[in-house]
């Protein structure tokens, strides 16, 4: 029971990170119908930017307040990653919009390879470890020497994720941008005709996706304290799984899918086999797509003849 509780806490933490990345997949898929393969690597780049920013702040500027440092790191990572994704969209995807269906996918895969190798070349292939940013935890329950703990790190992740999701929800549900996005999802040409700036809306979608991935990247760095150039692919695929599980195109679906994938993964590692934990996520992906292609919250895709 205690193990379960602890895994629940860990799973929700991991799931929050997946959920933040998953939103990026779902939004981009919703608006231009493309699996943005490079999104996982954008997340990884964000983690590296957070790393650099953190090092500048702590070792050069000597900022000792972790709260301030974390806040600045978060902002820097969000800004920079948004810029990266904005440029990627401009260069690699926009010229291919409306052309051959496979072209954007290949372009995205190429971009993914490029990003991970760019980081490898510019920052070196080794794991980058930093001293723990945040330490300490609450002990929730103790039973037979097994303490169920909720660490401050986890609490921060929960808090930041929750706050950002509220902001984000407000953005897409209540603002002009959100309406423009939904219009573009339905029919880009029609949206353009009624005066929606489609290019700008799509660009902003990539920017928001990147900002959320940047939050996820920063949280990832803070949580694990280590990052490497190859850390984009697997979390990326898992987050995509989360998006699919929740129903691609559905924003609450992405978050809930993320939590579910996080929980499945931690539970699987705890109770079955840690070696095969990625198999669990990939199997969930395959099984969902085969038996429930529209996901938990997605609209069914009817084949009209």
């Amino acid at each position, binding site marked *: 029971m205690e193990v379960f509780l602890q895994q629940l806490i860990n799973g929700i933490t991991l799931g929050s990170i997946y959920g933040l990345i998953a939103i990026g997949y779902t939004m981009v898929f919703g608006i231009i119908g*493309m*699996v943005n393969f490079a999104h996982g690597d954008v997340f990884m780049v964000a983690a*590296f*930017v957070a*790393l*650099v920013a953190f*090092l*500048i702040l702590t*070792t*050069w500027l000597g900022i000792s307040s972790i709260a301030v440092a974390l806040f600045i790191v978060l902002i820097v990572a969000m800004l*920079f990653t948004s*810029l*990266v994704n904005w*440029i990627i969209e401009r*260069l*690699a995807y926009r*010229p*291919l919009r409306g*052309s*051959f*269906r*496979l*072209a*954007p*996918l*290949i*372009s995205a*895969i*190429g*971009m*993914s*390879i*490029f990003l991970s*190798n*760019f*980081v*490898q*070349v*510019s*920052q*070196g292939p*080794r794991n*980058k*470890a*930093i001293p723990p940013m945040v330490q300490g935890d609450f002990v929730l329950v103790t039973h037979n020497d097994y303490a169920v703990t909720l660490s401050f790190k986890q609490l921060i992740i929960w808090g930041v994720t929750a706050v950002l999701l509220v902001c984000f929800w407000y953005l897409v549900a209540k603002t002009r941008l959100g309406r423009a996005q939904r219009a573009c999802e339905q029919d880009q040409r029609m949206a353009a005709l009624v005066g929606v700036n489609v290019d700008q809306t799509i660009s902003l979608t990539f920017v928001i996706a990147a900002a959320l991935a940047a939050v996820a990247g920063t949280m990832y760095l803070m949580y694990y304290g280590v990052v490497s150039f190859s850390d984009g*692919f697997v979390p990326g*695929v898992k987050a*995509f799984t989360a998006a*699919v599980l929740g129903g691609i195109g559905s924003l609450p679906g992405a978050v809930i899918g993320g939590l579910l994938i996080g929980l499945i993964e931690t539970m699987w590692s705890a109770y079955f086999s840690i*070696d095969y934990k*990625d*198999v669990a996520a*990939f*199997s969930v*992906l*395959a099984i969902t*797509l*085969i038996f429930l*292609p529209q996901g938990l919250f997605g609209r069914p*895709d009817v084949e009209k003849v």
Partner: protein
Amino acid sequence: MTEGAANQRIDTVAALRDAAITTLLAFGLFLPLIGFHTVTNIRNELELDTRWPLLFSIVAVVGVARLAYSFLLAPWLERIKLRPMATTTPAWRATFGKWFVPFCIGFVIVYPAIIIAATGFGGALKWVDNFGIQILIYVMLGWGLNIVVGLAGLLDLGYVAFYAVGAYAYALLAKEFGFSFWILLPLAGVMSSFWGILLGFPVLRLRGDYLAIVTLAFGEIIRIVLVNWVDVTNGYAGISGIPRPSFFGIPFNANDDGFAATFGLEFSPIYRTIFLYYLILALALLTAFVTVRLRRLPVGRAWEALREDEIACRSLGINTTHTKLTAFGMGAMFAGFAGSFFAARQGFISPESFTFLESATILAIVVLGGMGSQIGVAIAAIAMIGGTEIMRELDFLKQIFGESFDPTQYRMLLFGFAMVIIMVLRPRGLISTRAPSVFLKEPKPVPVDLVKQGHG
């Protein structure tokens, strides 16, 4: 005249502004990861270095490149666009087209001889192995995947799994039971094919990108199993000491019963390499030949029809499940052949050789080549694989950039970059026509704009 001049002036301003913006963006883009460098010091702590000169030179290069684009490339592209399109293909193109394939086949057959003549026995090894065999493996894989993606329009991102099945099937069976290469080659093909059909079955209902993602998941699952099922596969450490193929029973070694001794030659590793070269060439040509044949058979036409419109296929009484499965099985079979060849050539395999990157590379080759076009796939394989192999050879760059410069590091970086660039420039691939499989009077190539890409 004055109007043109005015245009020119406005262009200059715009170009300068664009270049300035691009430079600024590049600065922002490269600042964190190029301007700063995270290094682990002796105490195993992470420290920060700066690389301002590098950052500024890269930013400057980007800015200059943008200017060059505005002033040189863009006007040139504009002029090309304005030039009237030739409506009839010139005669030389037709002749060229007719002789191109025979010429290429002739060339690859004499390639080892040319290389040996040019570089001698010692130097030839590298050229036949890295450029010949390595490229041909990808050509064969590309042609195999082309059946699935290019003809049937089924997007498969896990193709490398079948390559792995073939390789492990050969490695394990050859080591355990000592079967010969020639028995195991078809066996590996059958096993891969079986896996192709097995994995194909549940995912057939899926369409488009979803299919791609599930095949990716399957590919990764197979790889993770290879990593973790240590008892059988030896995990990350891989399987070594895999029996090498023999020349119809005569081993390639320095012994008295070896190939060199038997034929009264001086021992050299090149003989095995040349033998392997012709082996993979034969396998690749077999793939091409079978595909060409299949395209003219009802299955092949059904594959292409499936890519064009699945619902119409069903309305014509075509069992689309079987049709898709045959495509999956056929593609997987060739991957299995290639896999067992790969294991036999390397003598060592590990899960590292079967990552997602391989699948992505093969898919990229198919798409860059122009879906469905065999010549295109071959050209793309030569360009992409040959290009990355060439990167290993560019030692002279050390003289420019200093001793610590290692060009091989940049292989995959440029590879990814090239994928993006080629897609942006030629989203339809290099060869953008489809040859009809049958004709009444004369075969007219179908412009690829009309060809659908499948949704499954």
